[in-house]
């Protein structure tokens, strides 16, 4: 049986994979390390892939590989976010890794492979494809986490991530097999037909158990409570550029995947999965808000911060409506820029020739590096959700969707935990602006850093005035998940 596959929808992934392999070959055969040039080429490849995504994706929904791979405007939106996130974090990494003598050409290639995996996840239209993409991404990330192999902390982080990740993958697979066992399909297009349509079947408890296991496996990837425990340790242990990469692209990809899985194949079971998602969202917001308060390491703080943000995104998902999904996408886009900008600042935290990570090290930043402090202040205000900055709108849309869906308790808890989390964001601003500098940072700004900071600050500040493009494209992307 010979079937020809339409390769057009998968063109960006193909291009990226080929580019990654070519760079790998080139890197192996080169004499020098070639870190900088490889990274530049990898970024260019990602930019080209983004252009391809833009070109390939249209309003039409396209599938290939026997319906396992789907390319729709939802996927376009998500892939663009992932590519932008990966490219920006890769660009930020260069100077840091070179200073820390970690500049090796494998780094950008691993990022490229991980990115391909994420794009596969985003476009997965079948649990098998989902697992394939997820593992490709995860394996790259395990290596990246332990990238600084001479550091005990980094290897410990990598190992923890690997063991727990394997456990999560196992759960996911187990859930998928349960779902398959009770429904007879792994396709995202067949499953809705079983529980929707004119004669919806009542899901068997075993099927629900499978759903729970799938949720658990995915929740691990987005570091939602109680599957979040790896996050602080890995964020702290891994080299900072890796952490910034972890915090952005894989999070976005996994959340998008989560959304597609919940709304697509299990769309008609919203009443069932909403209970778990609500619970996970509440726990995530709670832990994200409270645990961050006692942190002294800014990377750990960012870990809890991202846990909290995931909780907020899940609020939008729990709504289970097109508005909710739109809120999720808008939130993720804003989250992308806030995190990239914040990590750009963190990457610039150097004194006495070495990287510092303490929150208190930011003291007096407003006097030594006023622009950097201003950037950080804008980002922190935005993360805390202070209007009129972008972070406020991200929260606004997900909470509004939750309220419209009748989830008042969830929205109220969200707002309250948001208040608590404002404490540690504002504390950073207080430390920067009101505390005396102990040891001023070295001037380590590269051009890439400055541009990333400027870009993210601009997005955070200007979103209020120009929300149109993001909102409309997110709306279009969300609507394809709700065909009617």
């Amino acid at each position: 049986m010979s079937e020809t596959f339409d390769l057009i929808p998968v063109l960006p992934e193909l291009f990226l994979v080929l580019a990654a392999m070519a760079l790998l070959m080139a890197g192996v055969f080169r004499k020098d390390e070639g870190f900088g040039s490889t990274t530049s080429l990898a970024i260019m490849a990602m930019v080209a892939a983004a252009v391809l995504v833009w070109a390939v994706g249209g309003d039409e929904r396209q599938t290939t590989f026997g319906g396992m791979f789907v390319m729709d405007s939802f996927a376009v939106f998500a892939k663009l976010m992932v590519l932008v996130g990966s490219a920006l974090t890769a660009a930020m990494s260069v100077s840091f890794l070179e200073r820390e003598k970690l500049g090796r050409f494998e780094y950008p290639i691993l990022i490229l492979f991980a990115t391909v995996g994420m794009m596969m996840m985003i476009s997965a239209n079948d649990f098998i494809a989902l697992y394939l993409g997820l593992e490709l991404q995860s394996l790259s990330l395990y290596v990246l986490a332990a990238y600084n192999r001479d550091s005990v902390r980094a290897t410990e982080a990598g190992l923890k991530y690997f063991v727990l990740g394997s456990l999560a993958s196992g759960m996911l697979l187990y859930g998928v097999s349960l779902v398959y066992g009770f429904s007879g399909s792994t396709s995202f297009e067949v499953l809705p037909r079983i529980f929707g349509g004119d004669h919806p079947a009542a899901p068997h408890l075993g099927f629900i158990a499978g759903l729970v296991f799938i949720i658990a496996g995915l929740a691990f990837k987005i570091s939602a409570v109680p599957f979040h425990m790896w996050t602080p340790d890995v964020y702290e242990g891994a080299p900072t550029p890796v952490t910034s990469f972890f915090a952005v692209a894989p999070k976005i990809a996994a959340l998008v995947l989560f959304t597609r899985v919940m709304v697509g194949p299990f769309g008609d079971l919203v009443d069932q999965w909403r209970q778990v998602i609500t619970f996970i969202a509440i726990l995530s917001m709670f832990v994200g808000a409270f645990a961050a308060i006692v942190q002294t390491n800014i990377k750990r703080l960012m870990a809890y911060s991202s846990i909290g943000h995931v909780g907020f995104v899940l609020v939008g998902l729990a709504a289970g409506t097109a508005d909710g999904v739109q809120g999720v996408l808008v939130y993720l886009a804003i989250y992308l820029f806030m995190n990239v900008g914040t990590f750009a600042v963190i990457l610039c935290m150097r004194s006495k020739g070495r990287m510092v990570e303490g929150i208190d090290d930011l003291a007096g930043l407003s006097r030594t590096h006023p622009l950097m402090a201003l950037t950080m202040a804008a980002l922190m205000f935005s993360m805390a959700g202070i209007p009129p900055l972008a972070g406020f709108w991200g929260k606004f849309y997900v909470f509004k969707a939750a309220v419209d869906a009748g989830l008042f308790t969830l929205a109220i808890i969200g707002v309250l935990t948001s208040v608590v989390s404002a404490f540690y964001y504002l504390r950073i601003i207080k430390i920067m602006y009101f505390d005396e500098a102990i040891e001023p940072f070295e001037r380590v700004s590269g051009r890439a850093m400055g541009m990333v900071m400027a870009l993210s600050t601009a997005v955070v500040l200007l979103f209020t005035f120009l929300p149109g493009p993001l909102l409309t494209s997110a709306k279009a992307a969300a609507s394809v998940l709700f065909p009617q």
Partner: protein
Amino acid sequence: MLYVAAIFLPLLGSIVAGLFGRFIGDRGAQVVTCLLLGISAVCGAVIFKQVAIDHNTVTIPLMTWIQSGTMDVGWALKFDTLTAVMVVVVTWVSFMVHVYSVGYMSHDPSVPRFMSYLSLFTFAMLMLVTADNLVQLFFGWEGVGVASYLLIGFWYEKPSASAAAIKAFIVNRVGDFGFALGIFGIYFLFDSVTFDAIFAAAPGKVGATVSFFGIEWDALTICCLLLFVGAMGKSAQLGLHTWLPDAMEGPTPVSALIHAATMVTAGVFMVARMSPLFEFSDTALMVVTLVGAATAFFAATVGCVQNDIKRIIAYSTCSQLGYMFFAIGVSAYQAAIFHLMTHAFFKALLFLGAGSVIHAMSDEQDIRRMGGIWKHVKVTWALMWIGSLALAGIPFFAGYYSKDTILEAAFAAHSNVGLLAYALGVGAAFLTAFYSWRLLILTFHGKPRADEHVMAHVHESPAVMILPLMVLAAGALFSGWLGYDMFVGHDQQQFWGASILNIDAHKTMENLHHIPGWVAILPTVVAVSGIVLAYILYAVAPSIPAMLARSFNGVYLFLLNKWYFDELYDYLFVKPAFKLGRGFWQGGDGALIDGVGPDGVAAATREIARKVGRLQSGFLYHYAFAMLIGVAAFVTWYMFNAR
């Protein structure tokens, strides 16, 4: 134009002296404020001529203030005879006090501030008397209250002065609360706050009732009584009088202008202004009579035993205000305003004279440490005599005309409360004469009781202080005689025009000219006997008062402590308020709101954060365990909750 200038020039002076005092200096501030007020006073005289003598009542609308639904409040200056009388009194007394202050306050470090406050007060008072609606009147009312607060506390570094200022403000707040409620009530009843509209509609509202606490009350009476509460506060009537004696902490010119001649009479003015309302409520009038008569007598008794020269005059003011109120209570508004005018002159004279004495005695205010200084300050002495003669109501001085008219009116009301007021008024007249001469004798006559150092410095005040006193003395001498026919004599109906209403049932103003002879003579007789008694007790046999004080110790202490009003209020209101405040602060705010609220939440947050942080043990198997427990919990949840 001239009318507007009379009102707003003092405001201009206040602004110039207050904001630019630094640039124009002490002398500049004095010149500017006195000059502008002088112009204003001349305008005031012209206004009096045109409005009161020639009967050209005018209303000058300035602009709209509040327009909301049926509420329509404008800024307008209403000039009728009542206003004209007040304008001329206020501007001239204020002008005299301004000039006097140039001398009296010459050594003070913040002259521009003082002059600015004085002018501000004058402006507010003029706004009050020219208001054509209740809200504007309330504006002026509060304006004079603020100015009074600022001036009583002018020497704010003195704790007693600050306390007195706060006391005045708070006690007035009680009255103002009533006043505000009264305005609300009137708006509720009449759907307007403009005087013309209210007065036109008042006869139609007789018998209207409001339901409150399930009881039907007479609406007009309620409104009038509430307004009267406001008047009681401002005019220091019995119950709300406690701030006035303490207000003497302010500089003496302030006492003369605000706490004798003008502001404290605002209550009298307001009730007279509202005569078309009060006339229709016999109950309210009765209350006014009783309160006024009681105040007149009470304050006079207290005045007899005080030793501070300014406090004696302050109680005297309180007492005279009582006279004015019971005159109003028996529908003799004209007599009340007449007394208001004469009183303004002779009481300002007395206060400024007292200021001159204090100035001469190196800031000594206790009359027990004065005496025998008349030879050194002959002019002041003579002027104080004139003031006291006028106050005591000795024939042909100003007070004789106005006070006798009031007492005759009270008798002529032919009612029980009227007779009671007459009796109390005559008693108070006796006491007035007594304490006035006690003051005169102890201050000026007998042997000097001050030490030689002070006595050596006793000197007559400069001309800038004496000249205003002379002008006021002229008023104290002639204003009664000149004004009698116009204010309360046979020209009165023509003079007052429509500004004061007497309904036909209240013929006091006519009846007071037809009373038995002894009624008219009695006040003069008791006044003279009061003087004689004071002479005997303090000049002939000075040992008797001390003996009396010893043998009637209880009565003496009762009077000396002002009937224990302050102590009573302290016990009833101040202490419980402090206790309540402390309770709310420490218990309510500190323990409950802070403890459970900000502090409690913050502490709880930290505690939770610590515990959540501790979950992060770093052990791999803990993490894996958490994940598995999570999955197990969710699956279990569904097992028990699926459908």
